[in-house]
């Protein structure tokens, strides 16, 4: 269970998250949606500890990660995996080294790691033929799946996805969504996804809408289209009129 209490993040004078409260249900997939620039990625990075909040608390399994020291934070990184928007694969390493990096750096035998990497690549529908290729030789969709394999190799309890289908065509997006749902079903992990893609509503359990630093809506994905919450009503239908102002209105 992830609990976020009164989370505030201020960059210079810009308030990104403003006394935000959110409970993420355990073992479920929750999608955070919101307009571009609302601070969804900043929220996700605060949850994993890459960005320190200005104030507030984030509890993961009852531990307030905001209070942890740098060294203690490693326990959170072991528990949580993060799939980056553009995969963030290391350019200078091969796919094998990228996926297996956390094991290789812990001194595990290369042959042993190779077998684990092949297994993880198969889980994300990638063949072992790409093991010795470099990230620049793969398509965007393949890179994202490699990023997912790199995260899953550590068997995390929580996986955070930062816009996993940005820049992908609809067919590849669907493949990635189905893969995320399959992983969720198989591994029973807690997932948080940031997405602009309303297709993801079919695959997630809950949806939260972030607007002006606060969660304006939280509810089950199955009934989102019936919701009368003015924020979510406007957002998912892309209506110009409503409580969410367009840039022109602002």
């Amino acid at each position, binding site marked *: 269970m992830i609990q976020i209490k009164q989370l505030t993040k201020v960059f210079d004078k810009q308030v990104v998250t403003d006394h935000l409260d959110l409970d993420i249900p355990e073992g479920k997939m929750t999608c955070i949606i919101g307009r571009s620039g609302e601070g969804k990625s900043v929220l996700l*990075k605060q949850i*994993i500890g*890459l960005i320190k909040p200005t104030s507030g608390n984030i509890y993961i399994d009852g531990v307030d990660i905001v209070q942890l020291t740098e060294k203690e934070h*490693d326990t959170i*990184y*072991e528990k*949580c*995996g*993060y799939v*980056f*928007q*553009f995969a*963030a*694969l*290391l*350019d200078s390493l091969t796919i094998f080294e990228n996926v297996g*990096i*956390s094991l290789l*750096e812990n001194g595990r035998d290369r042959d042993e790691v190779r077998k684990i990497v092949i297994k993880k690549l198969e889980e994300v529908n990638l063949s072992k033929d790409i093991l010795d290729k470099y990230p620049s030789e793969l398509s965007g969709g393949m890179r994202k799946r490699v990023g997912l394999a*790199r*995260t899953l190799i*550590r068997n995390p309890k929580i996986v955070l996805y930062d816009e996993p289908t940005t820049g992908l065509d609809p067919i590849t997006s669907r493949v990635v969504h189905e893969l995320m749902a399959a992983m969720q079903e198989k591994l029973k992990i807690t997932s948080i996804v940031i997405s602009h893609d309303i297709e993801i509503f079919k695959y997630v359990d809950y949806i939260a809408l972030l607007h002006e630093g606060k969660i304006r809506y939280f509810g089950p994905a199955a009934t989102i289209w019936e919701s009368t919450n003015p924020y979510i009503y406007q957002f998912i239908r892309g209506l110009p009129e409503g409580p969410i102002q367009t840039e022109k209105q602002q």
Partner: protein
Amino acid sequence: MLINALNYIGRKTIDATHWLADEFLNLCSSIGEFLFFLATTLRVFFTTRLKFSKLIEQLMRVGVESSSIIFLTGFSTGLALALQTYIGFHRFGIEEFIGTVVALGMTRELGPVLTGLMVTGRCGSAMAAELGTMEITEQIDALKTLSINPFQYLIVPRILASTLILPFLAIFSMAFGILGGYMLCVYSLDISPDAYMSSIKEFVEFSDIKGGLIKSSFFGFILSSISSYNGYITTGGARGVGITTTRSVVLGSILILIANYFLSSILFQTGIS
């Protein structure tokens, strides 16, 4: 009219004071952040296992891959230095001391400084650009989420490799500089090989070389820490990487030149060189 003018001057003075105060605070903040970065690097160096494979990789990049430009700059500097010295010494008929001047110049000053500047241009810029790109494409964040300490994995090997390898590059620069001077003197200026070599043997001591090597090691530390720090704090996309790279080379080169004087002075006063 007079009041308006005084008003204007007053406002401009206040604006200038604010600007100066802001700049001063920014400078203090940057220095503080850089010192914190260095302190973190040292702490990680002493408290975590050294990544030998990464160290070797950086030694290859900074050392082996820079060797050709170091040979070339050392050799051409030795040629020019010998020629200029000949022009001056010929007037007094003391050409036999050209070897001494070339050797002292190359070992005490030109070898270490040129090596530092050339490696800053070649490797410091590459370090800043590589780390900057890694930062803006979230590769450094990715390392953190995989419980890999970016200081242990990226920063310590770069700084250590540069600090260790620069003295070896400086030796090559010194040797090729002296060789350049030798070739010019012997094959172009008709100075006997024995005169050139004996003037070096007679007046150049090991302490001259030792001082140059100590200085080049410091230069390696300066260029790599400046470049790594600038790369690590890069923001602002491709333009940010460009700015970072330029800043690293400019700042690294300036600091090497400034440090050269102070190091020379300290080494001289302590009797090391």
